């Protein structure tokens, strides 16, 4: 197996990666194919004898397979430990939870930092991938693991896009689909914010056309950091930011009449941006945001969203949005709920009230716990 993770992360990650390499090349939406695809994944809870209790969780843009395990790079708890674990809403005493790092990412699955067939990191020679390509790779993982029909697929944000794509493209492979804080297509505003992030990375001289892996430095850290700062704003609500920071000053009594991080919110964003660069690869950020921008489930199915779910049969859907999420607002959820209704799919939908904006699905929201527990069963 060739190394899949950026050199600078390799040592910290090395002993923490469970991965398989797919036996066949992965055909991609672009028409290209990707050979020797490695998928890094984690599982939680025991698989039962008839392999009927598996739940596949799809992670979001910068997430990873460490749903309910301490992250080996940051030392922080898994990104959804509040939802997944023994006795939690997704109860690993009862379910076998699988979460794989998406292709294009950098935590062990094949991505732009991986070594290509010529012995050098792919960089920008990595093929542009789509949400459906990410899903195809994970279906291949399920095939390898011998899991036919899942109890449920679950995802928030980009994870929700994968859940919808899974339902549309692999009907019959899951009994339940839970899509949270997500959309069936990226809007102009969504694409616009992503483009700001990508341009910030590409404008960093350290990016070097994507070939920064062999240098001594850590690549376009400044650009990646700015990209994360811009994106992070879209994950929070205005009220949430006001509540948390207001116009309070950072470690000072008065404004400096300069460009230091005078305000707490500036300091917070700078910290978030910088911390992000220690666990994420800039090229991965480019490729995954591109995949999200290309996502349009209706377009993939002849322009009519309902046709995407035509074969969904008895698969049960549960859709959750948050009233303060302006990244993927409730209207986007209603859009695909209508499509599901149009094909008479058994669908539930609820807009929950939570103060944290798009990130609400990752934070304290007891109503979400109850909905997930109730739906997953």
């Amino acid at each position, binding site marked *: 197996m060739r190394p899949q993770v950026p050199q600078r992360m390799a040592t910290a990650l090395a002993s923490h990666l469970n991965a398989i390499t797919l036996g066949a090349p992965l055909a991609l939406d672009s028409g290209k194919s990707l050979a020797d695809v490695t998928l890094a994944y984690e599982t939680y809870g025991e698989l039962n004898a008839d392999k009927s209790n598996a739940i596949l969780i799809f992670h979001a843009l910068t997430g990873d397979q460490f749903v309910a395990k301490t992250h080996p790079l940051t030392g922080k708890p898994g990104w959804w430990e509040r939802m997944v674990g023994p006795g939690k809403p997704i109860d690993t005493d009862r379910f076998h939870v699988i979460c794989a790092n998406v292709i294009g990412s950098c935590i062990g699955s094949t991505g732009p930092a991986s070594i290509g067939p010529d012995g050098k990191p792919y960089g920008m020679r990595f093929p542009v991938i789509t949400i459906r390509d990410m899903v195809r790779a994970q279906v291949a993982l399920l095939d390898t693991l011998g899991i036919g029909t899942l109890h449920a697929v679950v995802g928030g944000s980009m994870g929700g896009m994968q859940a919808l794509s899974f339902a549309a493209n692999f009907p019959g492979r899951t009994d339940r689909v839970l899509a949270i804080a997500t959309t069936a297509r990226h809007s102009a505003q969504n694409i616009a914010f992503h483009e700001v992030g990508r341009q910030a990375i590409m404008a960093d001289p350290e990016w070097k056309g994507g070939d920064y892996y062999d240098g001594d430095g850590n690549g376009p850290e400044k650009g990646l950091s700015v990209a994360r700062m811009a994106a992070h704003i879209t994950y929070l609500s205005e009220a949430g930011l006001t509540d948390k920071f207001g116009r309070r000053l950072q470690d000072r009594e008065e404004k400096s009449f300069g460009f230091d991080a005078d305000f707490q919110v500036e300091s917070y964003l700078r910290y978030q941006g910088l911390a992000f660069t220690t666990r994420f690869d800039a090229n991965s950020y480019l490729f995954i945001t591109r995949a999200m921008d290309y996502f349009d489930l209706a377009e993939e199915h002849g322009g009519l969203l309902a046709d995407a779910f035509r074969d969904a049969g008895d698969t*049960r859907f*549960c859709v959750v949005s948050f009233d303060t999420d302006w990244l993927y607002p409730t209207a986007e959820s*209603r859009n695909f*709920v*209508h499509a599901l*209704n*149009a094909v*008479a799919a*058994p*669908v*539930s*939908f*609820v*807009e*929950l*009230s939570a103060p944290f904006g798009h990130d609400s699905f990752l934070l304290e929201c007891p*109503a979400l716990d*109850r*909905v997930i*527990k*109730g*739906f997953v*069963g």
Partner: protein
Amino acid sequence: MALRPDLAKIAELVPEGTRVLDVGCGEGELMEVLRRERHVDVRGLEIDPELVERCVSRGLSVVQGDADRDLADYPDASYDVAILSQTLQTAERPDYMLDQLLRIGQTAFVSFPNFAYWRMRFALLFKGRMPVTRHLPVSWYETQNIHHVTVDDFRQLIADKGVTVEGSWFFAGGREIGGGNANWRAEHAVFQLSR
């Protein structure tokens, strides 16, 4: 848990194995009985997110939405049966809601509290106050019932619309009563309608 008598009557009348939409399904009591005892494929529409949450945790398929607005998104004749229980009087335009119901379902069940029930009349006549009863326990300023309706008013509306009454059932004091003088005697009414 015993169903309210108007809901129990509807549950009894819904044909087995049909496709049913319960508009204003609350926490899904009727849906659960229909699923369990009538083996129907039942979906719900409910405006209150907490009630939707309870439905979802019972394994029911319920969409959060506002019947006044969202019924328009359901395709024509997509259900065999459409149910509107105790919701008509909360609609912005009950007449439009009936149209939607009969567009979506082949047949519709509508239940509502009868505002001409004798206890209501007495309350208004002798106390001179808007009635607050066991079934309409909320004061005038906070009630969601913005279009109070009587059995005779309802009959007039469906006659004006040319809608067919397939059947009607009346209830008082938690029991079914005969149809005679229903406008006086009934606390609740259930109508089955079709186009």
